[in-house]
């Protein structure tokens, strides 16, 4: 029953896309592409729910030979365990909602049908990635979602900014993917397979064959594969593409760049969990942690509503990475799901706000806007130039104008800020913090303490900027009257998804994660001594979760106790149980505190105006600048860039000065203009030149020989004489 269901889930969106493709090739149009795609997604959603029953008792892989060589066989197949199912549900759910939302949001777009076709293609690729049971399959899905994001970011490709953004996104992720591919090559050469599960899958083999001697290359392989995740999930230092990706339509940002695709990185890392060594885990954790903090700080000072969300996404993804890196497998994935819902909600909400403004905007300054978009895209992409309909400084007091949007977004914000107990975000985040702290206490490793602190800070800042967003957008006085007049609540097709997502932001629907029997973290066979120990926090809070999600806090501790007992007999050493116990309590308390603090501060700043952001900004000018300039990432690249552009102008005038930014295009520029042009030059002058030189020389010799042929007969006879003499001499000498 499993295989047909999954196949069906995959086939629905694929078919929807195929219809579009075939008709498009025949230069026809299918008028209701939107219905088709949406229907496909809904069916897929239904099927994924059916799968819930199928998965337990035991995860299993169903494979077919995909590519069989003489003695090696690459199989394609599905692997179905609890995580798969949950991911399936999340993806299909969010996707369907986004489909519905788009019907309203994209309604008057000239390429309306194409948009849905792309969405379907994306859903297919994402689902394929989720269900496939081997690295190759994952990689395939991985690249395909990359393609879709390329197509969708560049959906409005007339805008040069969009054109640049999509290229940047694809290339940046591609850089990561190459790392991942190298990792795959390493694993393949070791194990001669790319399947993960089954007795001849990588995990089993790794567990059985590898010795401590292999730890080094295994760590390298792990990190390399993680590179793919760095690219896809926009971790530092490859994060710069995600903010630019906001050039795409907002539903896309919600679906791809918040809920699903970017989370694929986390999913991949989680899938790789069993072969992560201590080193690679630590690397992952640090990358995640730093990303979380840095992105959050950047988000504080953005004014473009979508960019704030973009950076918050980066930060949250960092959070998940941190969790996985710190061994809190379940926590990471739990946060992935919760985040998927509330972040999608936030984006869609912002979308509805933008839509409200944009509608008006279209009438008011259409051409003017058009101009400035093409005026100077470089600026624009750096984000210092914000389209007015996304600029929070033009908003304010919208809560009366668009109540539904306001309420739903508020819920989401509470959830992401980790407001205790009734919001799912709190639980997932709390799990992560607890996990990190737990690991720190068991191994009492300084690293994990640092990471824990980072995570706390990030949590606080998150709360701060999210509420900043809410306050600036929905509270206070309208800053831009004229726009405010025009603003209105969005149509039903857009508000319904908001409401649904809002409901999903409550823990009750995420109970699966609290059921410790449902999601079991796999064994990590390559950590040193306290290996098994790291499982404790998860299972424990898993236990707690169930209780808490149903009753109040009070029982939480009690529940925790017996959860503790539960785990104690699993791996019975009291020491760590104790540590885990305390870890969890501390984590929970602290997280509540920082969240509260953040919210309170932002209330002071942006609602009560007891403190003025400006004054603070001026007092801490350097810090503010650092944040404002996103740690000078782009500036740094552009600095390099300018130098190169000057060179370019001088050396390679034939290249047009197309707008380039960000590391990828920076590198692109280096290779393109310096290296490539050099190589091209080399090819023309040197290699080809050599050939032509030879030809010329031959020709020249021909000319010389001609000149001997003077036409005077006596010269000829002289040559004869000399020839004879030479021949004779040569043979006397020899």
């Amino acid at each position, binding site marked *: 029953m499993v295989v047909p269901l999954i196949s069906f889930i995959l086939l629905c969106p694929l078919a929807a896309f195929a219809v579009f493709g075939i008709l498009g090739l025949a230069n026809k149009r299918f008028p209701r592409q939107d219905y088709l795609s949406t229907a496909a997604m809904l069916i897929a959603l239904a099927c994924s729910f059916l799968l819930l029953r199928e998965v337990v008792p035991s995860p299993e892989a169903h494979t077919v030979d995909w590519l069989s*060589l003489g*003695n090696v066989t690459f199989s394609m197949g599905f692997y179905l365990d609890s995580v798969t199912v949950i991911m399936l549900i999340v993806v299909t759910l969010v996707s369907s909602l986004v489909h519905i939302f788009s019907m309203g949001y994209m309604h008057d777009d000239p390429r309306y049908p194409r948009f849905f076709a792309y969405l379907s293609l994306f859903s297919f690729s994402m689902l394929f990635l989720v269900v496939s049971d081997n690295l190759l399959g994952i990689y395939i899905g991985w690249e395909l979602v990359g393609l879709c994001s390329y197509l969708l970011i560049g959906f409005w490709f007339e805008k040069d900014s969009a054109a640049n953004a999509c290229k940047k996104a694809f290339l940046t992720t591609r850089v990561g993917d*190459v790392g991942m591919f*190298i990792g795959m090559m390493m694993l*393949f050469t070791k194990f001669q397979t790319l399947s993960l599960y089954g007795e001849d899958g990588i995990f089993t083999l790794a567990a059985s064959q590898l010795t401590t001697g292999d730890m080094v290359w295994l760590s390298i392989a792990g990190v390399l594969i993680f590179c793919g995740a760095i690219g896809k999930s926009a971790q530092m230092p490859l994060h710069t593409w995600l903010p630019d990706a906001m050039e795409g339509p907002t539903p896309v940002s919600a679906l791809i760049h918040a809920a699903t695709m970017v989370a694929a990185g986390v999913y991949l890392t989680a899938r790789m969990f069993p072969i992560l060594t201590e080193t690679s885990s630590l690397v992952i954790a640090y990358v995640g942690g730093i990303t979380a903090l840095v992105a959050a700080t950047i988000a504080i000072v953005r004014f473009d509503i979508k960019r704030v969300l973009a950076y918050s996404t980066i930060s949250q993804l960092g959070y998940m990475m941190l969790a996985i890196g710190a061994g809190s497998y379940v926590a990471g994935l739990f946060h992935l799901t919760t985040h998927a819902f509330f972040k999608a909600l936030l984006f869609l909400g912002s979308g509805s706000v933008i839509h409200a403004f944009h509608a008006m905007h279209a009438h008011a300054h259409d051409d003017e806007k058009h101009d400035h978009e093409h005026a100077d895209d470089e600026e624009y992409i750096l984000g210092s130039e914000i389209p007015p309909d996304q600029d929070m400084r033009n908003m304010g007091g919208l809560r009366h104008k668009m109540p539904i949007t306001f309420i739903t977004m508020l819920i989401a914000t509470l959830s992401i800020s980790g407001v205790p107990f009734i919001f799912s975000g709190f639980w997932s985040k709390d799990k992560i913090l607890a996990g990190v702290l737990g690991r720190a206490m068991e191994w009492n490793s300084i690293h994990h303490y640092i990471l824990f602190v980072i995570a706390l800070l990030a949590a606080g800042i998150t709360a701060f900027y999210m509420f900043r967003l809410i306050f600036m957008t929905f509270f206070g006085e309208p800053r831009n009257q004229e726009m405010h007049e025009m603003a209105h609540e969005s149509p039903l097709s857009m508000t319904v998804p908001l409401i649904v997502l809002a409901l999903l932001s409550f823990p009750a629907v995420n109970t699966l994660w609290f059921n410790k029997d449902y999601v079991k973290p796999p064994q990590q066979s390559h950590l040193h001594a306290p290996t098994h120990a790291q499982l404790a926090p998860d299972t424990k809070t898993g236990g707690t979760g169930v209780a808490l999600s149903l009753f109040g806090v009070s029982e939480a501790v009690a529940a925790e106790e017996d959860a503790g007992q539960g785990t104690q007999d699993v791996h019975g050493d009291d020491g760590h149980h104790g540590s885990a116990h305390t870890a969890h309590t501390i984590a929970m308390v602290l997280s509540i505190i920082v969240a509260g603090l953040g919210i309170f501060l932002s209330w002071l700043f942006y609602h009560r105006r007891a403190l003025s952001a400006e004054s603070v900004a001026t007092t801490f000018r350097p810090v503010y600048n650092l944040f404002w300039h996103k740690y000078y990432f782009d500036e740094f690249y552009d600095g390099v860039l300018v130098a190169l552009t000057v060179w370019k102008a001088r050396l390679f005038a034939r290249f047009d000065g197309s707008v380039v930014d960000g590391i990828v295009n920076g590198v692109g520029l280096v290779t*393109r203009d310096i*290296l490539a042009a050099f190589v*091209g030059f080399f*090819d023309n002058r040197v290699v080809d030149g050599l050939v032509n030189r030879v030809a010329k020389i031959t020709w020249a010799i021909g000319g010389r020989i001609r000149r001997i042929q003077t036409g005077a007969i006596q010269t000829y006879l002289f040559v004869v004489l000399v020839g004879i003499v030479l021949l004779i001499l040569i043979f006397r000498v020899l």
Partner: protein
Amino acid sequence: MLLSLMIFIPLLGMIVVLLLPRESEELVKRVTLLFTLIPLALAVYLFITYDRSTAGTQFFHGPVPWIDAFNIQYHIGVDGLSVTLLLLTALLGPICVIASWRNIEKGIKAYMALFLLLETGMLGFFAALDLFLFYVFFELTLLPMYFLIGIWGGPRREYAAIKFFLYTLFGSVLMLVAMIAVYLNSNIVNGVAEGLRTFDIPTLITLAATQGHALADSDFQIWVFLGFFIGFAVKVPIFPFHTWLPDAHVEAPTAISVILAGILLKMGTYGLVRVNMAMFPQGLDHFTNGIGFWGNSLALLGFINIVYGSFCALAQTDFKKLVAYSSIGHMGFVILGLAARNDPGITGAILQMFNHGVISAMLFLLVGVLYDRAHHREINGFGGLGTRMPIYTGITTLAFMASLGLPGLSGFVGEALSLLGAYDKFKFLTILSTIGIVVGAAYFLWTLQRVFLGTLNPKYEALSEINGREILTLVPLAILTVLLGVWPNLAIDMFRESVTNLINVLHAI
């Protein structure tokens, strides 16, 4: 017999075409199309009826004595590799005819006649089992190619044509020396000559593997390997013998570029597999055993091709030249895979050969479509075409994605396998080669952006969408691209046994 029929029907077609009156151009085209479709039908029949379970060559014709003085025989047959490439050749035949339907102004009759001759040459080359026959067919493709580029080419066609001709001839004379050397040693065992000399490839392969035979001497094999290698390297082309390719491609008419990239390049790699690897395993070993400079030389060449080709492509502003250089890069993967000498490597290389044939054919056809409309190929001269010609943009995107190795499309499988295989032997070089993947993505996407994305260049407001005939030429290739991307076994089944067999030969030494 069937095979001979397939090879010589185009030749017959040439004669028929030559007999037609030069006025009736439509008729000429139709007849040519017919005579290219018959081989296609036969090739499909071969493809279906080929026994995938054995490595041996099938559909023999011969050996029929031909020139007794040198024991030269007419001997043809196919194994999995040849059958795949025969199918590719036969497929591109009609496609090119259709592609040339409108845009050949002068001398359509001569054009079609030469094209048919060319097809005979290519088909014969892939089927020949007698070394001499092999060489004759190899050279037979030169003349028509020279004229097709030289007469119907672009402004610098004369330069390009003679350059192509000289380059290839240079390569093939070295090949000739090696070939004669093989022939002369083919009957010497332990220093004493016994029996007849032979050109028969299967025989030679077995001889080269028998102890004490002159052909099995490793030094001899190394030199002969070099001779053949240079001959094929020019065709592939392998750095530094590649500079004829960009010129030839840029000047050649669309259909001919398709043939160049689709088939002629494969003739080089096919020769490497059929002769260099199968016949001289020790020679191959000397260049690929990973010890010292020579041990890495072949892989090094592959790596240089990949990176060098990609960077050159990045530097181009001429659409066609860019595609041409990208071919150089992609053939690098083939070399790398072959150098690996293991299952994934060789399979990947062969797949890459076939897929590149299909994909690059698409790319050149697409360039041609654009050129027929805009009459220039300056990438920076376009912009925003995506709004004017959506279908064209769609197909181009597909081709580009396939070419930059997007999984799910055929380009990926070959590349990935070659790299997987190569990493086993040449870790460092392989990792460096992956640069090619990124750069490849870079120049294709950058081109995509400059040509199709952004604001529409006002010059091309009135650009017409790709028409039915052009779509007809592209769709089969596109289907193949997707099909082999999702179902590589379809192709691999054909030559799995042959590859296994080849590897056994290689490991026998």
